[in-house]
């Protein structure tokens, strides 16, 4: 048995050497299998890619070409008319500005609260640690519901202020547990002991040791919080009445979903069809304007997002 294993290992090594040199010849069935695999993957990728490319092409095409269905995958009768309309919209500018503010401020608050919550809970010595962990974890499983939360924020005077967007979701218990697990598994106890001996208190240890050792996990949860802020419209829809405070997504809902578009003045004399075509084009341009930034940044920081999925899968 043992000698057979050894023989196999030798063969395996030979096989590997072979692969490093010229590719090993594949059996015919394997070649067919691989062709099918490549085919399916390509098909899946195209199904994902095509709508995105179509939107991009349509946004640069003339209104009539879009409405008449002449756009396939490349702009037809290239024009920037849609983008001009979108950029002329004050609401889009306001929305963008607000969304950037909510994303930056909200994510900062999220990360801060998550870190200061996760750190003590990661320390074995914390008295009543299980009680506190449960206090937070329970909120993942049960909540008071929409109406009681609204009544509370109303009572606190937060309705129709930016605080209603920034504060109620300040801490995600899920992310907190992810970070707590990370701290518990990567910050060595010995490090704390020796730092303490050198006269380091908990705040200093947190600031000078824990945070610098945790930049990866901070990036991961920060990005997840940030994408959440960028994409959310629900709390804005519930809590805000002042359009000057609306994030981009609320305007996107009005324009893309409810079709509330102020038709440009000069279109007034034109037929309903032309107006409809223009609205159509504006929507495509708006989709690109609102989505392109995230889609073009994300490949650069893809690994942090992917890491986020992995870290999240490790249970606390």
């Amino acid at each position, binding site marked *: 048995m043992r000698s057979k294993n050894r023989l196999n290992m030798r063969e395996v090594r030979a096989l590997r050497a072979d692969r490093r040199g010229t590719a090993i010849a594949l059996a015919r069935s394997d070649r067919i*299998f*691989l062709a099918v695999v490549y085919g399916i993957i390509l098909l899946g990728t195209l199904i994902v890619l095509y709508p995105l490319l179509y939107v991009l092409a349509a946004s640069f095409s003339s209104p009539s070409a879009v409405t008449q269905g002449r756009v396939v995958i490349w702009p037809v009768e290239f024009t920037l008319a849609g983008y001009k309309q979108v950029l002329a919209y004050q609401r889009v500018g306001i929305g963008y500005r607000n969304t950037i503010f909510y994303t930056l401020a909200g994510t900062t608050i999220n990360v801060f609260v998550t870190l200061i919550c996760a750190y003590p809970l990661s320390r074995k010595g914390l008295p009543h640690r299980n009680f506190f962990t449960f206090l937070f974890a329970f909120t993942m499983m*049960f909540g008071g519901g929409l109406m009681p939360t609204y009544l509370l924020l109303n009572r606190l005077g937060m309705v129709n202020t930016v605080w209603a967007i920034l504060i109620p979701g300040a801490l995600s218990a899920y992310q907190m547990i992810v970070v707590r697990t990370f701290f518990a598994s990567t910050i060595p106890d010995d490090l704390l002991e020796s730092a303490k001996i050198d006269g380091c208190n908990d705040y200093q240890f947190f600031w000078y040791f824990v945070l610098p050792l945790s930049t990866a996990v901070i990036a991961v949860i920060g990005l997840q919080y940030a994408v959440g802020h960028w994409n959310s419209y629900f709390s804005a829809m519930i809590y805000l009445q002042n359009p000057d405070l609306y994030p981009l997504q609320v305007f996107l809902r009005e324009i893309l979903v409810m079709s509330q578009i102020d038709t440009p003045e000069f279109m007034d004399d034109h037929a309903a069809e032309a107006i409809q075509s223009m609205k159509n084009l504006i929507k495509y341009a708006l989709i690109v304007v609102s989505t392109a930034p995230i889609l073009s940044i994300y490949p650069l920081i893809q690994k942090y997002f*992917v890491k986020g999925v992995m870290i999240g899968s490790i249970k606390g």
Partner: protein
Amino acid sequence: MPLYSFLIIPVVYVIVFRYIPMLGAQLAFRRYSILGGIWNSRWVGFENFEMFFNSYQFNRVLSNTLRLSLYLIFAGFPFPVIFALLLNTIRARRFKRVVQTVTYMPHFISTTVLVGIMLQFFNVNYGIYGKLYTALVGARAPDLFSSGTGFVNLYIWSGIWQDFGWGSIMYLAALTNVNPELHEAAQLDGASRFQCMLHIDIPAIIPIITIMLVLRAGSVMNIGFEKVFLMQNDLNIAASEVISTYEYKRGFVVSSGIGSTTDVSLSTTIGLFNSTINLLVLVVVNFVAGKLGETSLW
């Protein structure tokens, strides 16, 4: 003591913004009045629950919620698994990375934009779908957004489109942990690539598939509000009203459902009902997960 001081802000936060609303949920057992508020409105026992359970909306929102989430679990979960298995058999690094970048992309599209794109594409008059249908069939395309089945299918398949790539990350990670010598040994013994996938790769990710399915089952009553709400219209409402959208409408939108005004108590009741069921489902699911292995939600 300094260690506790870290917790001051988080504990105050969680008590104020998470636990006080739970106390506020007592409105489900009161008849809300503006003067009385949460603490002094009249007690009515289970009157609000009876009103909710007896209304025609109850069966509707419950079955719609379950239909959407079960359909999404069963139709949705094979795609990321299969995609990961296929991607794992490919050795061309560059190609693989491009495919991954592209297929992860839709995950970052906001729900609003996703629904906006769908409304454009599936527009009967000038969307791709409408044009193609007319060109192929020669008749006006049926409006998918205005029928119940159309709504359900659009909801499910757009969800699969958006997340099959992203969902495959977990399985791909599990597959990279498979010892490559298993594959080499099997190939030396004459196994084909397909057989390797069937007998090495699939068994290797069965545990994680099970865990993912169990976790998904835990959120079976939680159909997210945002996408459903954006896709709703008067014509598909019979299939698209789910618990969370109904809770919102009873609380905030005048003239929907039972009465013609908003009903704070009823909205709270719906929310409490949903949270309670969620909690029960999670406890059961965690019990099952615990039986299946050492995996546990908490």
